[in-house]
């Protein structure tokens, strides 16, 4: 397997007036061709910002990449000019946004929105070829092509997300970034969409970054998992490491303790005390130490490094230094 994407020490800040919000604080990971990585974390963990940085879609005025590299197919995306980036975005990297209600244009028929991507990126962009491909794509995502002249408000939420997916996969991208693709959908529709995404992903053989707050989705579809907290990947490993491994970052333990399990009937949840850290005022040392019951002196002063506790399984916590454990 070859390495498709390598992100190294990515740091992103948003400035709002006087405050500087440190949204991503040194994220590093790599994605092999054909792999599916799940990024899990709560609101404000930096999942979406990481994705937007890869896509080069950070808001111009407020968002800034402070440091790091994003190597995609041997090129650092952060050094590309906007013109070159446009050739990558939409064709080699596709993105599925969270809210299908707002990510489609309400005044352009959906078929034309799918055609737009092809017009800019497809090799054969003759009218007939594009038309044929639009029908083919709509069929792939389960939308009758005869509805392509309708507008987004005429479709249900699940159908709209299918259209967004058709746009994202139109040029057979090497990498697909899905930002909470099913959060706005009902469970039975979510199951339909997830199954369809898996089939399509296998068919066009693309790698995927799946951003979600739902550990259930990760367990069902991902190969690797990155648990994010306060703009850092606090734990990284295969799904087996994360869901069946013995040792975890204290935040991962807290996250699992917070979700009611459908298959067991434990009477009480064990939530993480306290609130999410404020990105404009991050604590010194480990960003989780204020909520962590294992926190010690070192945790208050020094930001921990990532320690490898198994093959490819890393944890960013002082307690795991030199083969330690919780």
């Amino acid at each position, binding site marked *: 397997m070859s390495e498709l994407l390598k992100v190294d020490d990515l740091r992103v800040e948003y400035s709002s007036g006087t405050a500087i919000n440190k949204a991503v604080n040194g994220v590093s990971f790599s994605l092999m061709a054909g792999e599916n990585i799940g990024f899990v974390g709560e609101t404000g963990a930096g999942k979406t910002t990481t994705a937007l940085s890869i896509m080069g879609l950070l808001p111009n005025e407020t968002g800034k990449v402070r440091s790091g590299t994003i190597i995609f197919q041997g090129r650092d995306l952060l050094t590309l000019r906007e013109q070159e980036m446009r050739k990558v975005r939409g064709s080699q990297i596709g993105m599925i946004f969270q809210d299908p209600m707002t990510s489609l244009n309400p005044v352009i028929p959906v078929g034309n929105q799918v055609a737009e991507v092809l017009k800019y990126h497809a090799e054969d962009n003759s009218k007939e070829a594009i038309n044929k491909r639009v029908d083919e794509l709509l069929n792939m995502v389960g939308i009758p092509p005869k509805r392509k002249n309708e507008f987004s408000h005429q479709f249900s939420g*699940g159908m709209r997300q299918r259209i967004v997916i058709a746009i994202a996969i139109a040029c057979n991208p090497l990498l697909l970034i899905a930002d909470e693709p099913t959060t706005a959908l009902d469970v*039975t529709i979510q199951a339909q969409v997830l199954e369809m995404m898996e089939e399509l992903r296998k068919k066009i053989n693309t790698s995927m970054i799946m951003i979600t707050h*739902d550990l259930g989705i990760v*367990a069902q579809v991902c190969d690797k998992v990155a648990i994010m907290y306060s703009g850092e990947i606090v734990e990284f490993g295969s799904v087996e490491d994360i869901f069946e491994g013995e040792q975890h970052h204290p935040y991962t333990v807290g996250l699992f303790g*917070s979700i009611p*399990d*459908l298959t067991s*009937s434990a009477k009480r*949840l064990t*939530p993480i005390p306290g609130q999410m850290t404020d990105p404009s005022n991050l604590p010194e040392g480990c960003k989780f130490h204020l909520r962590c019951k294992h926190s010690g002196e070192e945790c208050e002063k020094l930001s921990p490094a990532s320690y490898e506790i198994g093959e490819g399984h890393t944890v960013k916590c002082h307690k795991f230094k030199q083969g330690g454990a919780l």
Partner: protein
Amino acid sequence: MKEPLVRVSNLKKYFKTPMGSLHAVDDVSVDIQRSSTLGVVGESGCGKSTLGRTVLRLVEPTGGEVLFEGENIFKLKGAKLREVRKEMQIIFQDPYASLNPRLTVSEQIAEPLIVNNVFSDRQSMRSKVMQLMEVVELSPRFTHVYPHELDGGRRQRIGIARALALDPKFIVCDEPVSALDVSVQAQILNLMMDLQDEMGLAYMFVSHDLSVVRHISHEVAVMYLGQCVERASAEELFSNPRHPYTRALLDAIPVPNLSGRGKTRMILEGEVGVPIAPPPGCRFAPRCPNAKADCTASDIAAQECSPGHFVKCINI
């Protein structure tokens, strides 16, 4: 069996639309026992929120009755109705939208006390507000802050304090944790369960999240397009679901462990319709894998397949 605190029988709520009458709640009968929780689950548009609101008479019903401690609340008027309303409260879904942005935390919590003239002097009201803040674990330093300064979890605590202010017996919780992150959601769920134990509250817990419902409920009702298709104790419903919709719903949930990986799920075809002037028979039939001609021939009555387990399906 004891007399339930709230008995909902054959409750109907139809809305008029230009396309015909929309059967938001259609012939729903459920009981809520004292100090226990009835979970109501279903997807968007199944009528679960309308059910919650009609049970509290926040909207007037089209038919049926709701007995609160044996009294039909739709027959009450004036002072008597206001008396009953104190006993029945609601917690709303969105803590960002359900609070008045121009009132401080203490003013929000005092509002129900002022409206109902509970206290004649300021001092005892203030101490009641402080006591409520303590109950919902809001630190006194938030007394004079405004909702926009707080995160979702703390705002939802204000919503809970408001609902508790008049010492109710019954609270309808309309998706109280769905706007919250999981770690905060767990804190609020624990708080609600503690309050139930301490104060003997009965909840009607409306949610689309089956794992949350299973966690907090004693009894569960599953709704589909305005009808209650299955009702049983939480234990029974999750271990032995009988209605095909309940089964599909349970199967559709991605569980956070690797056991379900690569398993073929029962994927429902199609989407939830709209119950405008619905045809007779089972409303799930168009999506049901086992549907037969009989399913849509005439309306289907709920049958008791084992004690306390009701299913609305003719194939059981």
